[in-house]
Every structure is written in C-alpha cells, then in structure tokens.
C-alpha cells in the first residue's frame, strides 16, 4: 500500500520519487493436493501468499536510470512496503520480471526515456 513517499524502499532506495503507480497483488499459491474431495468440495493446502508489486516508473533521466537499473537487474532485492494484512511495514525478498525501456529521443540530462513498468515478485511466502 502506497501511503506516503516512503512507502516503497528497495535495496535502500526510496522508490517513491521515481514512480507514478504501484500495483500490489497478493497471489495465492496452492499445492498440487488441491482439488475436489469425494464430497465435491474444494480442499487443499495453501502454500502461501506471495506478494507481487508492479511499479510504474515515470520518464527517467539518464542519471536516474543509472540508479534504478542496477536494482532491477540484480538477482534478488529487498523490498520494504506497507502490508495491510500485517498492518505494518514489512520487508520481503523478491526477484524481478523483465522490463523494457523505450527511447523516443536521444537521452540526456533534459531528455528522458518513456516510462516503463517492472514487477517485484516475492521469493517466499509472506509469513
């Protein structure tokens, strides 16, 4: 949940200044034992809730990209965010999805790339 400018910190970098949108999805992962029982009722083991945060970055300068991209390219990230289920700010370990940066102009100090999105997916279930 994005409550204030400090609501999302990734690897120690406050993302609030770089994003225009944060989308939080709380995905349930079910075990292979899930299915209908003999009574026709769904049953099964919930492995856990694996949060995914999709950040929509605004147009970024070359210098700003040079701060963000190393984080996006790393194998693992530590993401601190406010979780409404836990009612507190928590830190989870994530991995990132693919992202694409579009340049319509030559990028420099004043010109910026087009905005883009990147997802941060929890590596383990939220405890």
């Amino acid at each position, binding site marked *: 949940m994005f409550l204030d400018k400090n609501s999302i910190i990734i690897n120690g970098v406050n993302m609030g200044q770089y994003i225009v949108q944060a989308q939080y999805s709380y995905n349930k992962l079910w075990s292979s*034992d899930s299915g209908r029982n*003999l009574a026709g009722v769904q049953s*099964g*083991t919930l492995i856990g809730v694996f949060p995914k945060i999709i950040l929509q970055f605004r147009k970024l300068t070359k210098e700003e990209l040079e701060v963000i991209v190393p984080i996006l390219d790393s194998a693992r990230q530590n993401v601190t965010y406010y979780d409404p289920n836990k009612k507190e700010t928590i830190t989870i370990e994530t991995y990132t999805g693919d992202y694409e940066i579009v340049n319509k102009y030559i990028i420099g100090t004043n010109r910026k790339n087009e905005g883009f999105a990147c997802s941060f997916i929890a590596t383990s279930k939220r405890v």
Partner: protein
Amino acid sequence: MKTVTNNFKEQIAQLGREIDFKFFLHTNDKILTEDGKFLMTENNMHLVVEQFDEEEVDEVITGDDIFNVAIVNKGKILSTMMKEVDFEIRQDLRIGDVIDCQFGLKVGSDYEYVDYGRYMIYSKEFNEDTKTYNYVAFDKMLLTMQEASPEFLTDLEGRTLADCINLICGGVGLSFNATQEQLAEYPNLNKQINEGTFTDLQITYRDVLDMIAQALGLSMIVEGRYLRLKSLKSEVVDTFDEKYLKDVNVSFGNKYMVNSVVLSRSEDNDNIYRRDEESVSEYGVHEFKIKDNLIMLYDDREDYIDEIFEQLNGLEYYINDFNSTGITYLDWLDFYNVTVGDKTYKCLMLNDEIKIQQGLEETVYTEEPEETVTDYKTSSKTDKEVSFIVDKQNGSIRAKVNKGDVINEINLDESGAEINAEKISLAGKTIKMTSDNITIQSTNFNVDDNGNMSCTNANVNGTITSADGTIGGWTINSSGLNNGVVKLNSDGSSTIYTVADLFVMKGYIMGIQPFDTMSPQMLSHYDLNNDGVVNTSDYVILQQLIGISM
C-alpha cells in the same frame, strides 16, 4: 489416536489449510557406522541407546529446507511395528543422527503441532541433480533388530513373557514394566517359556518380541521411551466422511472377521483351535492361524489359546485402500469409521503413509490377510488327547494318543525309533524286516540274542531241518529219531526193543548164548551205551527203556 484439538480435525480438511514440518536434530557424536553402513552390535548397543536418548537439540530444520517427508507405518496384527520416516532435505546429516518429527497445521493464527516421535537415521543418499539428501530413519524398534546372543536366549527360557519383554527392553533402552492391571488383563504375560525353546537359534530380539506378541494375542509398538502393548479390543476413535477422501482411488472390499483361532505346528499337521460356534454357524469359519510359534510348540499350547482367542474373537474390519486429503492424527491399530454416502465402513489402521511436500496426501490401505484353511475334523481343542510334535531343533518327532487310561506313542530321535502302544498292527502285501539282530520277547513267542526261538502252539508247513532236540516225545539226533524203545534211523531202518530183547540179552550176559554167536547187527542193537560190548550196563538201560525189571 494422537491428541489434537477439534479445530485441528476440522481445519485439516479445509481449503486453504497451511501446513508445516520440523525436524529437531540431535547430532551423532558416537561411532555408529562402518564403511558408511549402520553398525549396531552387542558391544556398541549402549552407545546407540545413549544416542537415541540424547536430549540436547543441535539444530531445528524447518520447512524452508525440507523438500519432502513421508511418514510410513506398516504392520500386521499380533506383531511388532517399526515406524519409518523418509525425507529429503538440503542438509548433510550423519547416519546415527536422531531426529524428532513434528507436523504442524495452522489453526487460527498459530500452528498446532503433532508429535510423530523420534527416529534414528539408518541410511542416506545424495541426489546430484538437486544437491539434496534422501534419508531413511526408523524409530527405536530398530534397536531390537539386533541378533540376540545364545546366552541371552537361554536366559529367557524359564522366564515369564512379561520378564522376557522387560529383559529385551532393558537391553535396548526401552521401558516396559507390566502393571498389575496388565498382568490381570493379559494373563498370558504370566506364562513361562519352556526350556530349550530358543536353543541353537539365530534370531533377533524383535523375532522374540513377535513370538511373544502372538502368544499374548497383542501387538507392540514404541511410543517415546516405552514399549506399549496394543490390543484389538478397542473402540472406534473417530469417523471420517467424504471430505477427508480424495475423489480418486477410494475402494472398500470385503469385511474381514475372525471367529476361530488355530494354533498350528508340525507343518500344519497338528492343530488345536477355539471357535465361536454361534458366529461360525451364522457366518462360516473365519480363522486366524498362528503357525509354528516356537513359544507355543509344546504340549502347553492350550494354556495360551484361550487368551489369544479372547483377544481376536469378534475382530472385524473392512479391507480398504484409499487416498485421503489428509487425516494425520490416527495411530497404528486405531479403529475408525469411514462414511461414504449412506454406508459406513469400520476400518483398522494397519498401513498408513503420510506424504508431505508442498501439500499433504495420505494413503491408507489394509491388505487382504492370507487365507488359511484348517481341517477341523483332524484338529482338536486340546493337546492332551492327540499331539504331534516335530522338533527340528532337537531332531525329534513325537506322536501321542492319550485316551482314557491308554497312551500310545511313537518317538523318533537320533538314538532310534520307539513305539509304545496298547496294540501294534502291521499289515501289507509284503512285510520285510532286515536287521543284524532281532530279539522278540513275549509270553508266547521268543527269539533271543543267539537266535534261539521258543513259542507255544506252532503250526509249521514246509521243510524243517534239525540234528538235535525233541519232537512229540521223540529225541532227534544226527542218525534219526528215537523214543527209547523205538528207533527210526535216517537210512530208513528202524529198531524196536521189547521184553523179548531182555531175555535175549540176559542169555548172552549169563553166557547161555556165547558172545561169538552175536552178529554185528545184534551187537549194534544191544550195545545201548555204544561202548562196543554188551554187558549188564546195557541190560540196565534196556530195562529202563522198556520199563520192566527182570
């Protein structure tokens, strides 16, 4: 049944249950392997026991490092059961390491944990592809798999079954100590093992416990530090409906029941039994047969069978095979009901495999017991009338019939064969007896060591050869038969002495008739003492032969 809350029982069947598993590791710091293999000998047993009872927890291995776990309980009734856990984790543990296992289910906001007991790692295997280790571990019943020494086995003989269990448990770090209530409830605990039962046998402690379990009509399991006796006379602990069953692989077969118990020995040739006749007449014979149990191989079998029958009579459960969504809290030998639609199946937990990976699945099955058939016409309720014992250990066979005051026996052992019977009949087209020496002793027919035969009233047909003896008052000698006054010679001639011969002989002896007129035939006839002359000695003999004095 393990102790769990009602919320646990409800939650385990729910969609969205969350599970957990933990191992509490007690690392092995004692030498328990040889060439990578598990080593358990009489000499290092105390170290194994110490390791098994280690209290200090060295590490807790949680779900993050556990790839899969399978808890396996498999057994059959009237035996011991050894619990097993197979698991795959990242950590490299040692053979001989001990783990306590706990399964957790999130109930409300917290996890409720079920204790599955303590196990010792018996074997391990490394997976090159996943860089994980597969382990197999067993509970403390593993320690009874040790071969018992001859001295130990001899020490068991003469002891009660309760004492034997105590001795075995003492050697493997288990506690037993039958209570007074148990001794009263299971009277076979007070029975003694006969001398010679375990002579020259190579068996394990567990083999002995299995025999004792059968003799008690009970089963045995390790719980914590205790060896527990489990009876089949227990109530249903819980009922499960369709929500505990997966929608595939659910089958229920015939109802298995017991209304007859048979103790069998001598390759199934000698059986005693107890039956519930009312049940048999209604449902037919459904027997449970115990074969060649060394403890019950002697003539005191009927001292055991009543209690065994008491434990087994009335046992009934459905043969089953189903995959469950997960129950997890039943114990081995628990009775439970399964309700499917309007049918209720009473089941007995004999084989249970709980698999935990990301999810939970439980496979429960009961195998169809081996069918046995006993010819009850040739069986009896007691050994006191008929018994047939094949004692392979001592190399002997004994058959006995005992009715009223009559006891007939056949005994075979290395010293020979002996038949003692009221009457012995041999009948056959040809009967051949071959021996270096036959002697017969009876009131009417005897043959001694030297071949001298005597009998009364013999009727003989055929050829008889003799050069000595008497027959019908006649004396047999090499030249013929004679009865004194009459001689029948082997050349066919005969000689008869009469009173006239007295006068003739007297005439020669008194010189009335000269001796030189006596022909050789007359000399032979009258020379009764065969001294070459005819004199008064011959005359006396002739008088005696004829029976007249002159």
